[in-house]
């Protein structure tokens, strides 16, 4: 039984729409029936106990897994059957649960990979003189340094990404995602395993981004951070959506408290 909140009643559409998603692996029904909307300009939270199917939902949305039923619509287009790179090209950029940076590329190079694919990356340009890609490259390098300055990580610019700490790698992933100029950021446990100080810093960055109009869908376990950042919050359990609402509304919901929030 889903809790009817004002937010939920209003939402019949959104920047991202998941409708009746279902997915099974090897006999296990990871996702049973999931529907929710993500409104532009919000940080929508996706929480729930382990095994609820949250990561699978992220994989379904980003194209890494194919649903056995249901639809995903992004910015008006049906992306259910799209491959991961096609989804990303539309402006839906995700980060990963386990830090997924390009280890033997420097931080700058990681960020350059975040910028959308451009003509300089073509084989024809590669076989030509440097001038054919130099200028575009310089522009992107400058932009990368701006992003790094904003995140105060400029001093790590030419370090190999693989040599960074876990928290720093997450920041690299976030900066890289920013370079893509996304319409929606899909964050898969961005604070997992990050020390509290750094987590707070990431929090501040995310708030800044939201204030600038960025939309985000965030899976997270650290409930204090969820409370601070996310509204609305979608709660999942056993592969389906249990409830949706602000943290206050959810804390008033007995089912949710039993399943997840209470102790």
């Amino acid at each position: 039984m889903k809790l009817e909140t004002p937010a939920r009643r209003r939402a019949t559409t959104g920047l991202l729409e998941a409708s009746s998603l279902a997915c099974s692996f090897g006999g296990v029904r990871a996702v049973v029936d999931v529907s929710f909307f993500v409104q532009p300009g919000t940080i929508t939270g996706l929480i729930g106990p382990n095994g609820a199917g949250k990561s699978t939902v992220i994989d379904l949305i980003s194209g890494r897994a194919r649903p056995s039923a249901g639809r995903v619509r992004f910015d008006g287009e049906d992306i259910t059957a799209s491959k991961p790179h096609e989804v990303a090209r539309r402006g839906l950029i995700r980060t990963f649960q386990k830090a997924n940076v390009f280890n033997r590329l420097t931080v700058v190079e990681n960020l350059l990979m975040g910028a959308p694919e451009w003509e300089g990356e073509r084989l024809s340009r590669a076989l030509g003189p440097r001038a054919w890609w130099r200028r575009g490259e310089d522009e992107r390098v400058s932009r990368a340094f701006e992003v790094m300055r904003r995140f105060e990580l400029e001093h790590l610019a030419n370090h190999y990404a693989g040599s960074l700490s876990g928290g720093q790698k997450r920041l690299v992933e976030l900066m890289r995602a920013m370079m893509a100029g996304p319409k929606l950021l899909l964050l898969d446990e961005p604070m997992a395993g990050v020390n509290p100080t750094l987590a707070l810093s990431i929090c501040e960055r995310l708030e800044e981004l939201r204030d600038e109009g960025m939309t985000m869908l965030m899976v997270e376990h650290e409930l204090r951070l969820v409370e601070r950042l996310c509204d609305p919050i979608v709660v999942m359990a056993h592969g389906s959506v249990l409830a949706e609402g602000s943290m206050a509304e959810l804390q008033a919901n007995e089912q949710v408290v039993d399943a997840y929030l209470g102790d």
Partner: protein
Amino acid sequence: MSQSTVYYLSGLGILFFINLVAVWGLDLHFGFAGVNSFAFIVFQAVGAYITGVFSLGRANTPVTFETYILGVHWPWPLALLLGGIAGAVLAVPVGWIAVRRLRGDYQAMAMLVLALIANSLIAAETGWFNGATGLESVPQPFGNLNVSLYDYHWVFLALAAICGVVSWWIARGIARSPLGRSLRALRESESALAALGRDPNRLRTIALVAGGFLGGLSGGLLIQYVQAWGPASWLYAETFLFFTAIIIGGRGNLLGTALGTLLVPIGIVEVTRELPQFGYPGEFADFQWVAIGALMLVFLWFRPHGLIPERKRVLRPRDDGASGQEAPARALARGSQR
């Protein structure tokens, strides 16, 4: 220097360039795109065979007694180019295997067995490329020049060097360009690459085709130099030789792989060929293989990145004016507030 020494050295030079082209091709597959291309010798073989059947002319003549497919007598530059193209074409089905994203050792074994199958099939089917005997009497480039044996080596050395330059142009162009960076990213994490809007399969195919072209070109050159090519020349262990060159020299960079080529295929195999033979015929070759295997283990243990590791690409913003100086200071200031 005696004439025979000069002849020997120019021959080494030719073989160096032929192997270099092949090793750079494999580095595009392995060092850049991260494909464990353990069937790489087949690219060289395909290039050699195609160049051969496009130069040899009609099959089954009373002169040659060879049976093979196609069989036309085209100008040698065209035949050589077709050898390269054949390698590029072979890259496509190899790509289908690479797409399966097998575990590293499974992928290596699958390719190894494919190379074995290809070798056995061609050795068995005499109608394709003259079976186990292979192709012989392949006409040489500039063959009708009236020069001595010694002088001809210089001619071929020039040709091999030109092919080396062409390969350098292709490999370096890819390596230092944004495309090269995308390939290295593909090597590091295919999932992250896809999540950033780039099609991993398309990128991998580009690397495979470029590397395949180089492999085929190398084969075409080789058959034009040695004028013969048979299954015994491309057993699956030959790929291991190329891999050793890359691992020892240093993968993912042209200089390292060039050094590896100098040390392994040239240094160990060709140079030592001239040392006094001992034991039974071929015993020295056996020791070479033992040495190569041992070198691979030693380097994988002590120095897996090779003698010349992949260089870090340092990038800085171009406008190092006031903004460049201000930024680090600002970052430091903010940093101290945390």
